[in-house]
C-alpha cells in the first residue's frame, strides 16, 4: 500500500500539518557502511497525550470519527520493524511530536526510498503556510532546504508563485 519511504514521509508530514504544525524538520540519513537508513521528523504541532499516542500506533485508529483509514503510522512502524530497524515516537501536548525510524539498508523487505526531490517539492508548495527544514545526508553529501531562509529571500513573494516553483524545481535538480 505504501510502496516507498517517500510516501511515508508525505503521510507523516500530513499528520503534522493536520496537528497545526508551523515548522517541520525532516532528516533523511543513509549510511551504507552501517547498513542504515534513518528518518527523523519533528514538528511543533499540537502534540498528543499518552492515550492518543497509543491509539495512533493502533492500525484501526483515526482521529476522524467514522473514518477507517489511518494506517499511516502503524504501516511505517511495521516497515521499520520488518527490516530490523527501530521506531520511536514521542509527543508532548502543545510542544509537538517527533518520530525517529531506522531501517536496515540491506534488508530485502526495505521499500525503495522513492523520489525525495518530488516529495520535498510537493510538501513545500502544497503547504505554503508551513515551514520546512529538510536535511538529506549520506557519507559524501549533505543537502539542506530550509523554507524559512527561502521565504526571507522572497520578502513577501509567495513560495508557490509560478516563478518560484520553476526556480525550486531547477534548484532541486541541480543541487540535491
Amino acid at each position, binding site marked *: 500500500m*505504501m510502496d516507498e519511504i517517500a510516501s511515508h514521509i508525505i503521510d507523516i508530514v500530513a499528520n503534522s500539518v493536520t496537528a497545526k504544525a508551523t515548522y517541520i524538520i525532516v532528516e533523511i540519513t543513509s549510511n551504507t557502511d552501517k547498513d542504515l537508513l534513518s528518518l527523523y521528523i519533528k514538528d511543533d504541532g499540537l502534540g498528543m497525550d499518552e492515550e492518543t499516542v497509543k491509539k495512533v500506533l493502533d492500525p484501526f485508529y483515526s482521529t476522524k470519527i467514522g473514518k477507517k*483509514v489511518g494506517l499511516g503510522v502503524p504501516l511505517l512502524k511495521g516497515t521499520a520493524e520488518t527490516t530490523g530497524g527501530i521506531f520511536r515516537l514521542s509527543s508532548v501536548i502543545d510542544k509537538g511530536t517527533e518520530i525517529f525510524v531506522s531501517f536496515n539498508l540491506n534488508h530485502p523487505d526495505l521499500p525503495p526510498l522513492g523520489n525525495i526531490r518530488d516529495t520535498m517539492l510537493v510538501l513545500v508548495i502544497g503547504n505554503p503556510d508551513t515551514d520546512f527544514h529538510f536535511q538529506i545526508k549520506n557519507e559524501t553529501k549533505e543537502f539542506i532546504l530550509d523554507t524559512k531562509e527561502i521565504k526571507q529571500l522572497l520578502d513577501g513573494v509567495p513560495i*508557490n508563485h509560478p*516563478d518560484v516553483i520553476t526556480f525550486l524545481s531547477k534548484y532541486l535538480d541541480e543541487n540535491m
Partner: protein
Amino acid sequence: MNLEELKKIREKAQKDVELRQKQARIRIVVGMGTSGIAAGARDVLKTFIEEIGRRNLADVIVTQTGEKGLASQEPLVEIYEEGKPLVVYGNMSTEKVKRVIVEHVVNGNPVADFALDVM
C-alpha cells in the same frame, strides 16, 4: 543555480503579488491522506505544481489536504473558483491533470469525464 537568484525572482514577481493576495482565481486542493498517497496523489500534486510553474499561472494555487473519506476514488482533486460551483475530480492521474489544467483551469470548461461531483 543558488538561492541568491531568488532575489531576481522576487523583483520580477512582486508586481503579481498584490493581485494574487486579493484572491487567487482558482484554488486546487489535492487529497493527500494515506489512501490518496497510496493511490498516486503525490504525482498528481506534482503535476499540478509543474503545470502552474510552466504555464505561469500566477492566479492559481494548489494545496494539499488530508483524507476526504472517498478512498475508493482517490486521488481526489477539488477545484474552487469564485462564483462557480465546486468541481470534484476522482481517480486522477498525471495525464488527467494535464487535461484538467488545459480545459478547466486555463479555458474554464470542467472536464465532465473525470468529475465525480459538481456542487
